């Protein structure tokens, strides 16, 4: 069972009945929405998917970050969120590093773009990222663009269909971070950027995949 409608902060949703809540709050047994978003009610959970807002780090998310600062034994990474993430030395490299002799900027320097995984978020939102992941890597060259974090799902498409389409048509290398940053490299990157920005702008329209497909072929 899935009912989808727009709810506002403070909208009454229904009785809780022991269900899991996402972006909702309760008063007794009554459930209200916390944010402006799309309502998804099922037998297991009541969830509101926000339509706007800042990216809040969640463990397991794969994000694109930009190295911001170098510490004695790690790096501060800007992950397009109110919170900076820390990349400790142990989570970044496999090899032994003698900190007395080596300057950490030879591994990651300020301004470098990395694709990493969020490994830890504390209650006070102290965020740690890790490079110990199959897909984590340093991204050389290319351009990074920023979109609304809540439209990332649309850019990826169902089962990755949309992003595969753009990758195939433009022959670009593309990494999409869940924080709304997208890294693109390749000869046709202008085309890919245009397609992604169109998706962001027209995320609500029907038949977007065909439109993007036509757009990429036409040029």
């Amino acid at each position: 069972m899935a009912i989808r409608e727009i709810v506002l902060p403070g909208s009454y949703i229904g009785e809780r009945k022991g269900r899991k809540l996402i972006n909702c709050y309760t008063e007794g047994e009554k459930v209200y929405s916390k944010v402006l978003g799309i309502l998804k009610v099922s037998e297991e959970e009541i969830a509101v998917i926000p339509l706007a807002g800042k990216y809040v780090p969640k463990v397991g998310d794969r994000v694109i970050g930009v190295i911001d600062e170098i510490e004695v034994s790690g790096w501060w990474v800007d992950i397009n969120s109110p919170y900076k993430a820390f990349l400790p030395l142990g989570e970044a490299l496999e090899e032994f590093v003698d900190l007395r002799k080596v300057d950490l900027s030879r591994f990651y320097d300020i301004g470098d773009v990395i694709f990493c995984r969020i490994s830890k978020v504390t209650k006070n939102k102290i965020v740690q990222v890790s490079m110990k992941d199959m897909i984590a890597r340093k991204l050389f060259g290319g351009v990074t663009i920023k979109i609304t974090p809540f439209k990332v799902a649309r850019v990826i498409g169902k089962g990755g269909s949309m992003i595969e389409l753009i990758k195939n048509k433009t022959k670009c290398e593309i990494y999409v971070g869940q924080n709304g940053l997208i890294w693109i490299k390749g000869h046709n990157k202008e085309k890919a950027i245009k397609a992604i920005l169109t998706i962001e702008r027209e995320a609500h329209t029907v038949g977007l995949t065909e439109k993007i497909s036509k757009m990429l072929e036409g040029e």
Partner: protein
Amino acid sequence: MGKKPEIPLIVDGKRIDGRLPDQLRNIEMKIGEIENADGSARVKFGNTEALVAVYGPRSLFPKFLQETDTAIVRAIYNMAPFSVDERKNPAPDRRSIEISKVTKEALSGAIFLEEFPRTVIDVYEYIIQADGSTRVTAINAASLALASAGIPMKDLIAACSVGKIGDTLIVDLNGKEDNYSESDMAIAMLPSKGLITLLQMDGRLSKEEVLELLKKAEENCKKIYEIQKKTLLDKFKVAEEEV
């Protein structure tokens, strides 16, 4: 306040702008006027017009201002130099510092601040045109801007002003009424919960009158609340078709 008006404020049960005592002015609300901001709104109550931009939650510096377990709200209320007949000095004065403080408190009561520790939510309230009840107009706009910025809240905040001219209790005071009425009261509340987040009074009222005015304010806040909800739903209706 208390001064004698040049012309009578109420004639035959009608106010100077032709409204009935219980009637609100024309209300217009728009969302997303400022593209750079995370959320923004422009609200018009008759000739009073407020433009509000919300930025955040974003990291707060200098670091000693950060609260380790909650976010803070910074509200800045100001009136444009051209908003009133005589030029208003744009520097913050006693009045705008006070209104910044009370609107901040009125808004932060509704926000789930504990979800964003160590951050700040900036609310910039700018009055473009002033014709009475500017602080409630700013709160109404700020509430819309916060909701459209995706900030988690208990409820939208609706605000309205009430007052007294002679023996008549009125709602939504305009500039003239604000200046010459015996008393006026600004109220902000979470309408669906019935909780009051701002209550200020100027002048003299009896206990019965205060209770009567509170009832009137609640009624009108609910009307404003409906307009706020409709504005938000209209703006984001397109998104509904997406899924």
